[in-house]
């Protein structure tokens, strides 16, 4: 592979990660508030379809993105209502919505399947894009890829440095403690679930208007992305930078799969396309195995020095979810 091809490939990895980043950061915000939105997979499909349809109908890309965000927010509002107000299992609600939204996307998107529509154009940043190597890598993208860079930093800054952001972390950690500090837990959980849904909802139009422009129904190749997003959220340990790392790593592997395909002519393309999924299992294994009881038991039999090192390595990889994730909150008990 030539250096140029490699550079363009890596630049492509960055832009292919943009929708994942929106999904992962959106979900991270939602889960930090103590709600998990497992509808992600259907939500991304529906907002991809809806965003494409809106932009096709109006000719406006901006309205396409707006529609995607609105769909994400609407689905998240259902999650919020059923889990915060009605206290139903968030897994059950998420699963049903994931299925429902997927089928809705296929049903409603049927008439616009395969149509040509608007798509984002590249927006090289004048001056910066001329820098050798870095210019191609970082400054020759469309606007959503730039936005995804900003999103990571903004999410980190918000959660670590701002007052409402610190409260957001508190909501998912100990809602009662947040409550005595003046937070309206239910209202804020609603707000963050819906906001997180809107951000994640943008992932849809980023696919259908940029990364994989158009709507191709069941062969869009988007089914499963939402689950990957949820897995990366776990891998990311609910931290924006680590989550971004996970998203980039995932896209890199996917790209490698494509690049390596010609080297293995006997392997059908579908096989390489699923390679990320066993990898997803593997990363979750690494992140979670530290909690396993059998490991603790076997570690206890090792000499102390070795044990300490292994335990330290595992705890560095380990990701602890917000303590009150999925736990309903009552003000007065």
């Amino acid at each position: 592979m030539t250096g140029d091809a490699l550079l363009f490939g890596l630049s492509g990895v960055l832009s292919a990660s943009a929708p994942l980043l929106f999904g992962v950061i959106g979900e991270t915000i939602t889960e930090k508030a103590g709600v998990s939105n497992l509808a992600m997979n259907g939500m991304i499909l529906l907002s991809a379809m809806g965003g494409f349809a809106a932009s096709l109908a109006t000719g406006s890309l901006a309205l396409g993105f707006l529609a995607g965000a609105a769909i994400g927010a609407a689905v998240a509002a259902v999650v919020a209502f059923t889990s915060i107000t009605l206290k139903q299992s968030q897994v059950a609600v998420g699963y049903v919505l994931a299925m429902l939204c997927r089928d809705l996307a296929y049903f409603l998107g049927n008439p616009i399947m395969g149509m040509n529509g608007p798509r984002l154009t590249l927006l090289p940043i004048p001056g910066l894009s001329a820098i050798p190597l870095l210019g191609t890598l970082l400054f020759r993208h469309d606007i959503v890829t730039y936005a995804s860079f900003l999103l990571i930093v903004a999410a980190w800054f918000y959660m670590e440095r701002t007052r409402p952001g610190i409260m957001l972390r508190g909501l998912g950690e100990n809602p009662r403690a947040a409550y005595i500090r003046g937070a309206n837990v239910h209202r804020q959980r609603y707000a963050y679930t819906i906001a997180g849904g809107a951000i994640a909802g943008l992932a849809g139009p980023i696919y259908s208007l940029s990364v994989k422009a158009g709507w191709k129904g069941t062969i869009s190749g988007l089914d499963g992305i939402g689950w990957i997003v949820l897995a990366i959220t776990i891998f990311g340990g609910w931290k924006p930078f680590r989550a971004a790392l996970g998203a980039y790593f995932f896209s890199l592997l996917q790209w490698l799969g494509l690049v390596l395909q010609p080297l293995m002519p006997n392997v059908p393309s579908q096989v390489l396309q699923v390679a990320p999924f066993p990898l997803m299992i593997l990363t979750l294994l690494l992140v979670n195995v530290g909690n396993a009881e059998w490991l603790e038991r076997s570690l206890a039999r090792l000499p102390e020095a070795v044990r300490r090192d292994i335990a330290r390595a595992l705890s560095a990889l380990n990701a602890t979810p917000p303590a009150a994730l999925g736990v309903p909150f009552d003000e007065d008990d």
Partner: protein
Amino acid sequence: MRDSKSTRLVFGAGSVVLALALTTAIIALTGNDPIAAYRNIAQGAAGSPNVAANVVVSWVPLLLVVSGVLFTFTVGLWNIGIEGQITLGAIFATWAMRLLQDSAMAPGWVIAASIAAGILGGVLWALLAGALKTFGGVNEIFGGLGLNFVATALNLWLIFGPWKRPGVASMSGTLPFAERLWMPTVSPQSRLAPVPLGLALAAIAIAFTLLKGTYFGLRLKAVGRNPTSAYRLGIPTWQHMMLSFALCGAFAGVAGAVQVTSVYHRLIPSISSGYGYTGLMVAMLVNFSPAAAAPVALFFAALNVGAIQLPIVLKLDSSLAGVIQGFLVLFVLVGNGIRTRLLARRKGAL
């Protein structure tokens, strides 16, 4: 308001009405005639003895899957990986068929061996998801989904690789088995086979008996409600989790084997046809109660089969069936939530 059978019934009926109303609105939104769509589905599901038989054919794997996930739900696990377990059942069944089809064995025994192989495949795949969960801490939803994709890839690789048709591999699957190895049907024209139907009914009966009447079922329930307490009460927790995974995988494996031996007579790319995902929906809708599972599964099968004609006749996507099912389960969940909220409020006011 009282927590009685009749309030539950009212809420159930309300969910159905709301689901239909919303689906109707959505069909109308796309500029189509909802009545025509429903009529088409109804005709597709019950318009002739032939399509009715198809509904039963599709009821069989669904019922098997529901029987399986009742075990995993009872022990508190979301076995989303069941889709892959069906696929592995189908792959193993096909494998056994390919090994035995030229042997001197009687066709009945070949089919039986193939179903046994299917069970093995389903169990192995389920145990893999179970091991990831119990020993690796990987949430069974993600582990299961990942394994589903792997199973699909494995299936495709076999169809396009080692097991491809002589000449050119194609999406239509492997070469069909010899006709003598097809599962016998009620009549030569029909696809309805009595043995799979019997297996499915037996599966739900077994699920009902084990879960409702035995200490094993009670232990599963205890583990599902609170694994820590269950362990402290002396119940081997992870063993019960693995066992319920294995049971679920076994039923899924039968479903996959049935698809291969009695419906398609070969291995095809999307052999699991989403039965696993639909089965989870059915189990949620009946609130994990085995008694209601059979009729609800029949209804879901009717919707799926009925919607097949939609794209041809009305140019509507057949995912409409999934839309109705999704709304139904969603509104039942919402209804449950509202009902418990109202009950709690009433209690508080006492």
